């Protein structure tokens, strides 16, 4: 499990896509603090709660809008590439299938946790505050996005198709989720309870629900993968 996770983690740092995404994240972290300073200097009416997380607002928007796209962009083929090329046979004959999925999850999760942590550190250097609750909320959001990515990669056998799907889902999901979270239309409003934005609207511990939903998606992924011939 840990070997698989480690390899996934290391390979995520390689390649032009990761470098671009990491760069975007770090640059936004820097400008996030600049933006906050600008907003504060205008003397706008800012509540204490807002003042608390204003420094990371740039990172928050970036992850809300593009998190799913970034995660999918890097990891859409995390499972189906190995299934397609049949390298997965080396793994399934060596270790339990649940451990393969969990190992891959841990590798991706640690990658994003590292990126997010460094971004928050940059903010911390300039703003001298570390917004722990915002950090945990974003971590829960990324956890959800990673689990969804893994689920799709197990469900859809063709890597080419998940790449296409990844772009589609990455762009459409934030818009859809924002809509179901904010709408008063009862036909779709229930969906907010299975999507992640609803649980990170306010600085409280509701974000833990996202972790629960992630677990459910991972368990479904494992059960599907267990039933598959490789």
């Amino acid at each position, binding site marked *: 499990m840990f070997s698989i996770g480690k390899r996934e983690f290391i390979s995520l740092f390689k390649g032009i896509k990761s470098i671009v995404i990491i760069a975007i994240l770090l640059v936004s972290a820097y400008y996030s603090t600049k933006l906050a300073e600008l907003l504060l200097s205008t003397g706008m009416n800012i509540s204490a709660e807002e003042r608390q997380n204003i420094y990371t607002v740039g990172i928050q928007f970036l992850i809300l809008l593009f998190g799913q796209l970034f995660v999918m962009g890097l990891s859409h083929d995390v499972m189906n590439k190995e299934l397609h090329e049949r390298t997965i046979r*080396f793994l399934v004959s060596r*270790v339990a299938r649940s451990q393969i999925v969990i190992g891959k999850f841990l590798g991706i999760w640690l990658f994003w946790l590292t990126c997010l942590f460094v971004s928050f550190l940059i903010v911390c250097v300039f703003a001298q505050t570390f917004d722990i609750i915002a950090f945990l909320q974003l971590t829960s959001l990324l956890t959800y996005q990673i689990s969804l990515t893994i689920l799709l990669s197990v469900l859809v056998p063709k890597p080419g198709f998940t790449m296409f799907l990844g772009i589609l889902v990455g762009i459409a999901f934030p818009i859809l989720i924002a809509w179901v979270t904010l709408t008063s239309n009862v036909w779709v409003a229930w969906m907010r309870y299975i999507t992640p934005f609803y649980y990170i609207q306010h600085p409280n511990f509701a974000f833990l629900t996202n972790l629960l939903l992630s677990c459910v998606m991972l368990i479904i992924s494992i059960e599907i993968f267990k039933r598959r011939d490789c």
Partner: protein
Amino acid sequence: MFAIETKDLSKSFGKTTVVKGINLQVQTGEVLGFLGRNGAGKSTFINMLTGIIRPTSGSFSLLGIDGPSDHVKKRIGVMPDYSSLYGNLTAKKHLKYLAGVSGKTVTNQQCIDVLRSVGLEEHANQKAVKFSIVMKKKLGIAQAIIHDPDLIFLDEPTSGLDAESTIEIQQ
């Protein structure tokens, strides 16, 4: 205890039954070769034992442990019939990674020793994408034995190889 024991092991894909009620007992220490025409179901049979595909019915045990079992996986070595390698990993990194997946840490020297035994010593630091078919087969065998398993499955380790390499591998 048998190294391999199967009872009425069968596999169907949709309506076609490919492996039908195999009863087999293999003693520990025995080397068993499996012959059959193309499409007879040899690979399908092996893949059931190695956890790659699920049997439709019947049962089996490996090294006295009822399968399919995740516990026995650490103790078996498998070279699947068709599998590409991890193109961007070198031969040595393949062995380190896959031994690690089996829960074993191996030294550089152990990797080199195993690579030497299959005749890939000089290519230890070469990426697998650049390997010829025969070299890939040899690396396939090396990864099946790197974690020192008690039971080894090799699916067509010598097909497509020239006579010299075949003898090399059989040794």
